């Protein structure tokens, strides 16, 4: 019962946040100076009919929101606009139908582009995050256990350095080094024009393309996870129940595994969730450097091509993914922590 209410509260919260992002996304593109929504209509390559079609489809001929007087009940009569017949609600309706606009660059619906890109990004982030979390946790446990020794100081300095590396620069350096020394591909997801004789050959080619971006990702996030794990564990290892475990005669490895790590996982899940925003920032940089066909790379290309519908769509998808991932982390937390879980 109680857990159902918890679930409902979390879902409601995520829904509200998504609404907030959608609204923000709408206003940024319609209200900020530069009038980006209309800018594309001035493209000389478009015919007059095409311009008109776009204007109607996305409601660009309508007011942005209802006229200001409509908010005042005494003068409502002066306002002839149907509140639902405004750009904002047309945008909203289009979103619900999965319409995100037409790319200025390719003249194809933005949604068509973004679908495949999302999966490419998830693949890249997934591989990098899993490695970074595993290595970061291991290194953090080692540093906390051996705190104040040379191992700890070394791991700490390494993590601070890794944290300070600009992701895109580390990517450039690794790309420079990997492509000249080991002949690794300089970008993309698969070698173009290569006829793959088998599934395995294709996976091998994909792996070679994934290697450097994943390595960049891992190094950059490893430092942060290690720092979080170390400081969380230092607190936990000073708790009384660790002394109890030691008094029971348990071996150090078992204490670390069954008592310390299990407690440390809770703050880790929270912090990983809070970090998801940085994850996306990392994706934008890495996909740009390695020409990875994902959402982050789409952001970069859209900026360069002034392709605002694409930019808007990619941003929306990124933000909503982060919100949903946050929701997942919240629910995971409640499963891990018996104090939240109510039976």
């Amino acid at each position, binding site marked *: 019962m109680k857990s159902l209410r918890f679930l409902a509260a979390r879902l409601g919260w995520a829904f509200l946040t998504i609404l907030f992002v959608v609204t923000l996304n709408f206003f940024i593109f319609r209200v900020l100076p530069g009038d980006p929504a209309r800018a594309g209509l001035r493209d000389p390559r478009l015919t007059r009919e095409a311009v008109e079609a776009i204007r109607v489809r996305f409601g660009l001929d309508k007011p942005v929101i209802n006229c200001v007087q409509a908010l005042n009940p005494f003068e409502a009569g002066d306002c002839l606009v149907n509140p639902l017949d405004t750009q904002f609600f047309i945008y909203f309706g289009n979103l619900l139908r999965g319409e995100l606009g037409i790319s200025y660059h390719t003249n194809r619906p933005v949604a068509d582009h973004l679908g495949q890109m999302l999966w490419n990004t998830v693949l890249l982030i997934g591989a990098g995050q899993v490695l970074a979390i595993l290595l970061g946790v291991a290194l953090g446990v080692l540093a906390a256990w051996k705190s104040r020794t040379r191992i700890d100081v070394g791991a700490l300095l390494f993590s601070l350095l890794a944290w300070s590396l600009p992701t895109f620069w580390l990517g450039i350096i690794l790309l420079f080094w990997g492509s000249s020394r080991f002949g690794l591909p300089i970008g993309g997801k698969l070698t173009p024009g290569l006829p793959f004789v088998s599934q395995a050959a294709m996976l091998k080619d994909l792996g070679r393309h994934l290697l450097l971006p994943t390595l960049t990702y891992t190094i950059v996030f490893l430092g942060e996870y290690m720092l979080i794990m170390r400081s969380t564990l230092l607190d936990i290892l000073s*708790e*009384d*129940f660790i*002394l*109890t*475990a*030691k*008094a*029971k*005669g*348990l*071996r150090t490895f*078992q204490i670390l595994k*069954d*008592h310390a790590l*299990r*407690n440390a996982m*809770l703050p880790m899940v929270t912090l990983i969730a809070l970090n998801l925003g940085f994850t996306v920032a990392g994706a934008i940089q890495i996909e740009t450097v390695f020409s990875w066909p994902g959402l982050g790379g789409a952001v970069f290309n859209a900026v360069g091509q002034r392709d605002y519908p694409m930019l808007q769509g990619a941003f929306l998808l990124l933000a909503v993914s982060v919100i949903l991932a946050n929701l997942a982390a919240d629910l995971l937390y409640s499963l*891990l*922590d*018996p*104090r939240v879980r109510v039976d």
Partner: protein
Amino acid sequence: MTSPLLDVRDLSVDFHLPGRPPGHAVSRVGFTLQPGEAMGLVGESGCGKTTLSLALLRLLPPQGRIVSGSVKFNGRELLALSEPEMANVRWKDISMIFQGAMNALNPVASIGAQISEAVRRHYSFMTPVEARTRTAELLDMVGIGAARAGQYPHQYSGGMRQRAMIAMALACSPQIVIADEPTTALDVMIQAQILDLLDRLRRELGLAVIFVTHDLGVVAELCDKVLVMYAGVTAEYAGVDEIYNQPRHPYTQELLKAFPDLSRPRAALNSIPGYPPRIDALPPGCRFAPRCPAVFDRCHIDQPALHALTPEHLAACHLVESES
């Protein structure tokens, strides 16, 4: 006389803190414990009771060093064991009930798991099912009931948590249990229940118990003998009747005055003014001299030796020495 179960002699523990002179937390303390015997370890907080208990299990924090003495369990010298050998002694031979069960229990592991973990560590021949059966048996024994094995510490009341801690301490049928202030932070009714439980189990299982406490009432009811500690040294060590009827050390006498005596409800209750000294700034003579009502010149210069009034009654005070 048979050799004692636990024979502690001359045990000293120093604390080394950076930038400070070493602190003498425990100095040359000794006692013996026979099978099934209960000893009270009494003193104000900060007198080295907990340090002494942790030293017996070799669980001191990194600042702490055992610098002299010997601890023999069944004739075996614990201070000469390697760390893995010592880990086998912990809980199997000597276990401990920590103060504040809430913090001493892992919040994200079920009570049952925390008990059976100890069982399986020391009875490696047991299958998981057998370990679970043993856990259920233990929980029944302390009155919790096996049905609650799957619950977590936050689902238990304070008294229940302390019972769980006791069940955990008995998991491997140890011969000695150290109970470090087992009833702090519990309300009076629950305190009495927990102490009854401990006393009953001790008699049923023939356990030797060290009660670490500042409550002389507990000691009077449950213990066979008493070790009174003050600022890391033995003040007085005697059978429980001697301590209550003929306390010889002024510190023991003051402690008894500070303890409400139900047979003399009108007697004034007084606490001892002042605090025990810091372990890195001990007075040169008797450590109790600055607070002692019977202090005289020599107390500030000489540290009194432990004097045997009878073979079973020891006290460290110049007054006792000059009397006999």
